């Protein structure tokens, strides 16, 4: 049985040996991931981090005309305050009480699903939480019963918040549910001449930059799951090919479409930096028989970037990168394109599938390497001990100023494609606010001087 045919997705730990902690150098990390299994380590101090539920939310939130029903207490849907999108899914909390946690939450779940359907949802995603997992609510029975009463698809997103240490498991679980919406080609719905472009956490600016590249090649796109609808997901099974912008997050869906509907899923790099963008464009050109157009477009764009590259804004500067593995190769090259060197990397998670990515970084050598998903105290420790001129991170970057690094936030930044190279170079030269010396420190001096693996032990099985 293919992995996507079961009741739910397996954890990332089971599927690909994902680790959520590492503290060492890039070359030692490459060495540790070279075998059949990566040694798991356990933290004895942790900070709040994203779990599978939050990652599932990230996958589902952008699908309009659908409802996300969070089967838990009210707080289990609190992140909707930040994640809800004006043109995305509608959010409901089953709002389980202490009594429901004892007697079971099936009845309020049923009521909530019916309400969501009554208010116009074209598909309903029921997202699991720790309370119902511990209580062992029979969600499948409720969904089965309701499926007999309605034609609206009701899909179980079987997250629980504690089965996996890797939040990426939640992406897989949500995509597992989405695969059930996709339709096979045939029956008058033949294969289309469009590309499935998988995007989960990409911001609109980056997606617009990618869309501009596709437009230049004359390629029609089907963005999934951001800015999509059930109709976009249904037709995903009929695409010419599927490409992930961040393979760490969305490969489950790409592999699933390939296995179930024969939609090719080529490995293209995230279009970050000159080289990766060139390969991304060339790859698309290959898929859509537009190799010449891709080549001409890439040359034109590169010519237009000559001034930026010649300025070498990072000359002599060391840059610490906190990015996903799928992006690190591109960002590393981008830093070098702009004249700098990589001072260290903090990655979201690493698994056996990432070996090729990491191997391509080998030249960077003995720089610090962390796998520190949601653990800013570990990044603070490395920055305090090794220093850097710039810190490039996904969000919440102000803390780096405390250690003398200029914070560069990727939160709403443009960094995809040729356009992204110019924008990133511009972000580096933005003036630094005068308050940077006053950023408050929350960690003890003792921790900042300690060995950064002091709180870690090897997992005993």
């Amino acid at each position, binding site marked *: 049985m293919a992995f996507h045919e079961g009741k739910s997705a397996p954890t990332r730990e089971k599927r690909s040996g994902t680790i959520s902690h590492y503290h060492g150098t890039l070359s030692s990390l490459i060495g540790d991931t070279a075998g059949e299994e990566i040694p798991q380590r356990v*933290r*004895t*101090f*942790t*900070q*709040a*981090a*994203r*779990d*599978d*539920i*939050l990652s599932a939310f990230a996958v589902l939130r952008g699908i309009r005309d659908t409802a996300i029903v969070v089967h*838990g*207490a*009210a*707080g*289990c*849907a*609190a*992140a*909707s*305050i*930040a*994640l809800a999108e*004006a043109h995305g899914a*509608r*959010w*409901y*909390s089953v*709002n*389980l009480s*202490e009594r*429901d*946690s004892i007697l079971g939450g099936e009845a*309020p779940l049923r*009521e*909530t699903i019916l*309400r969501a359907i009554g*208010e116009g949802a074209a598909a309903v995603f029921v997202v699991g939480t*720790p*309370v119902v997992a*511990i209580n062992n609510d029979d969600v499948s029975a409720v969904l089965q019963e309701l499926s007999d009463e309605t034609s609206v698809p009701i899909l179980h997103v079987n997250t*629980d*918040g*504690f*089965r*996996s*240490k890797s*939040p990426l498991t939640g992406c897989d679980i949500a995509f597992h549910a989405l695969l059930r919406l996709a339709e096979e080609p045939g029956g008058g719905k033949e294969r289309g001449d469009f590309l499935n472009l998988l995007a989960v956490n990409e911001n609109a600016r980056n997606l617009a930059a990618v869309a501009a590249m596709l437009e230049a090649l004359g390629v029609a796109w089907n963005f999934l799951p951001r800015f999509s609808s059930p109709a976009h997901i249904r037709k995903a099974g009929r695409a010419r090919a599927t490409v992930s912008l961040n393979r760490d997050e969305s490969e489950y869906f790409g592999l699933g479409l390939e296995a179930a509907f024969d939609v090719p899923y080529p490995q293209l790099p995230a279009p970050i930096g000159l080289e990766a963008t060139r390969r991304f464009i060339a790859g698309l050109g290959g898929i859509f028989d537009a190799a010449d157009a891709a080549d001409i477009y890439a040359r034109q764009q590169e010519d237009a970037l000559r001034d930026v590259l010649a300025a070498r804004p990072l000359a002599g500067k060391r840059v610490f990168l906190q990015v996903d593995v799928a992006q690190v190769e591109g960002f590393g090259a981008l830093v070098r394109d702009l004249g700098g060197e990589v001072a260290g990397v903090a990655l979201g998670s690493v698994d056996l599938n990432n070996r090729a990515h990491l191997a391509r970084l080998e030249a960077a050598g003995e720089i610090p390497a962390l796998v520190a998903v*949601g653990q800013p*105290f570990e990044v603070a420790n490395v920055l305090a001990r090794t220093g850097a001129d710039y810190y490039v991170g996904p969000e*919440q970057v102000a*803390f780096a100023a405390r250690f003398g690094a200029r914070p560069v936030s990727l939160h709403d930044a443009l960094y995809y494609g040729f356009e992204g190279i110019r924008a990133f170079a511009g972000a580096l030269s933005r003036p630094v606010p005068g308050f940077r010396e006053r950023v408050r*420190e*929350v*960690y*003890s001096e*003792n*921790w900042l001087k300690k060995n950064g693996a002091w*709180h870690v032990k090897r997992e005993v099985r």
Partner: protein
Amino acid sequence: MGNIRNPRAGCALHGALATLEAIEGVVPIVQANAGCAMQHALAYRDRGGYTVAQTVPSSNIIDKQVIFGGGSRLREQIKNTVKVMDGRLYVVVGSCECAMVGDDLIGMAREAAEQGLQVIGSNIAGFHGDIHRGYTRVFLDLIDALPELETVRGLREKGGERPLVNLFGLFPGGDPYYKGDLEELRRILEAIGLRVNSFFGPGGHAALRTLSDAALNLVFSRWGETIAARLEKKYGTPQLIFDAAPLGIEEVSLFAQALVERLDLDATGAERFLEREEVLAEYFLLGAANRYFDEGAGKRAAIVGDSETVLRIGGFLSRFAAVDIRTAIYTDCGEEDALPVDFGGAAHATGDGGEIADLLCGSGADLIFASSLETEVARELGVPLLTVSHPVHDRMIGDRTYAGLRGAVALGADYLTLARQGRRAAAEKLARKLAAG
């Protein structure tokens, strides 16, 4: 309880976390799976006015600890939190999982305290209620557990020339403007001769250590009443309860008068302060008197928020600017609660985004005072919105206040700005219609 569309208020754990994070020197430690505290961080982070970062210590329990218990994981988390995070008091808070599994977090906190660490526990779970209940519950636990710590015992500051008052009922999550509101109340109270423990902000930990020294506990919402009652029982501290924080010169005068009488303060000093404040308020507010009559007075409004917010802001608007509050929606009242005030219009109790949108659509309001979650419905209705209740994410709040005297000036100005926006939108719509023939 019933399901909720577009939930706005998190859970009791989130209320406890918002409270603890806002007290300087206090570090919460969450015994939960990784996402519980992260949900809170995402919900509150970058929302106007809050102090939340993704640095909350959390044991991030996994299935092994759910099955076999998370006690030993919590023990190592407490021990190492003290080493990694700068803090003066560490508060272990629970979660739904922790409650269902039966982890003894109070015992673990006590064990750490016996070793001389400044650690206490609060047996809270998300399903105990919303953020308001979380605030009340964690404060009750602080009051009960603080005396067990050596640094609190024997360090109580007694006496002093000016009486000390504790402020309860305004808190992050309940009041998005809590920073500015509490500072404005402090300014007024200090001016009439009092010292103030507001707990949130600079000096928060020191305020906790002296809370039993207060001459009086001032309560500004129903969510502070149990806290004051506990302090009265424990330390004999009397209390003065208000439905909401005072807003506007009349309310503040009554408030000050009540305190002067209760604590036998220098009435002349208080009067002099209020006289000067009245002159200033008139200077700022009545300079725009013509605008009130030209375009501001008597507007129809709808207001959405917790009971304290609705009573304070709705009360001021109807008194001062003769605003006709057509619909008042209380988001923290259950079906069993009596609705506080209807302002002569309709009052409703719901925190459900769908119901609130429907009520606003049927309200006939010219202006909406609500949260950022009402942005979409306000846009659909073409009605200006001022975000006064949680959550607020369309503006950075800084020290802005809608309480006391400065808050009245700020709200008066914002009200007029909103009224002008509404008038302009209506005029443009009319002009388009006329131009189209």
